[in-house]
């Protein structure tokens, strides 16, 4: 998928009640794994806002439509992706949940019922049990979601090559390469020298820029790279 940009945020490190208060990267606190405990998700609003902010920033910077964006995640990250993606004011291309669940269900409201949710889960998962996948689907559908599919795999709390392949195929149907959706980039000729240097570094062109002195040379390097 050479047309896809991936953003992989790291959660803040905070004590996790269920793990005896041990501090670790976590999107929100986890008290326990039963449904009642899933209502206590201190910090989830902050993480929800952070993930939504990533999407908003991308849209503001590049003009990429929200329906060309996917939220995905594993386990707690999958739970956060589901919680965030279905409650956005904008419609995403899809939400992918791997071995996750619906957290804080009492506060959850579906804002985008037509966003497809692809949920993969291991039938041998002893951490987040498979039954929770089906319960999550039922809860989200009961709140209005129109397209929530659960895919079962004979695995524990992990993902398998088969599941990975299925996710990839799903993503290719939701966000295939589409030249009409290419991001809008600032014209190199309109960039400051500082902006040019950042863009050249991001493009991996630093070594090719060695020896260039004039601004027009940097502009041409970037223009030629984009035209390839």
């Amino acid at each position: 998928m050479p047309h896809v940009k991936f953003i992989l945020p790291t959660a803040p490190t905070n004590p996790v009640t269920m793990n005896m208060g041990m501090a670790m990267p976590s999107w929100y606190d986890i008290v326990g794994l039963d449904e009642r405990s899933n209502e206590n998700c201190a910090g989830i609003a902050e993480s929800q806002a952070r993930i939504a902010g990533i999407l908003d920033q991308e849209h503001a910077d590049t003009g990429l439509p929200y329906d060309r964006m996917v939220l995905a995640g594993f386990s707690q990250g999958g739970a956060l992706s589901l919680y965030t993606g279905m409650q956005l004011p904008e419609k995403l291309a899809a939400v992918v949940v791997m071995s996750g669940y619906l957290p804080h269900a009492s506060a959850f409201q579906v804002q985008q019922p037509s966003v497809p949710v692809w949920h993969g889960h291991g039938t041998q998962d002893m951490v987040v049990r498979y039954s929770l996948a089906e319960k999550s689907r039922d809860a989200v559908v009961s709140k209005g979601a129109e397209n929530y599919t659960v895919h079962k795999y004979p695995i524990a709390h992990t993902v398998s090559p088969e599941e990975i392949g299925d996710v990839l195929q799903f993503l290719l149907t939701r966000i295939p390469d589409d030249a009409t959706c290419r991001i809008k980039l600032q014209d190199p000729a309109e960039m400051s020298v500082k902006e040019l240097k950042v863009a050249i570094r991001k493009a991996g062109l630093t070594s090719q820029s060695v020896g260039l002195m004039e601004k027009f040379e940097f502009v041409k390097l970037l223009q030629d790279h984009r035209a390839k």
Partner: protein
Amino acid sequence: MATFVTAKTGDGTVIVSPKNEADQSALVVIAHGLGDTAEGFEDVAQVRLLDLFAVVVQAKRIDSPFQANLT
């Protein structure tokens, strides 16, 4: 020749972009599980989606007495 460029921000976010950013027409945000970080992606995330998810799995296999409680 790599088709992606990887960058990391101060808050630990890893960004894997098409080398020619003008090629981008979609975005996927991937949130890791409890106890993981995005840093484990850095070396291989440039390759392709399959590798990304493979790293998710590797990062998940933390040798910890608390592993059973990681979600």
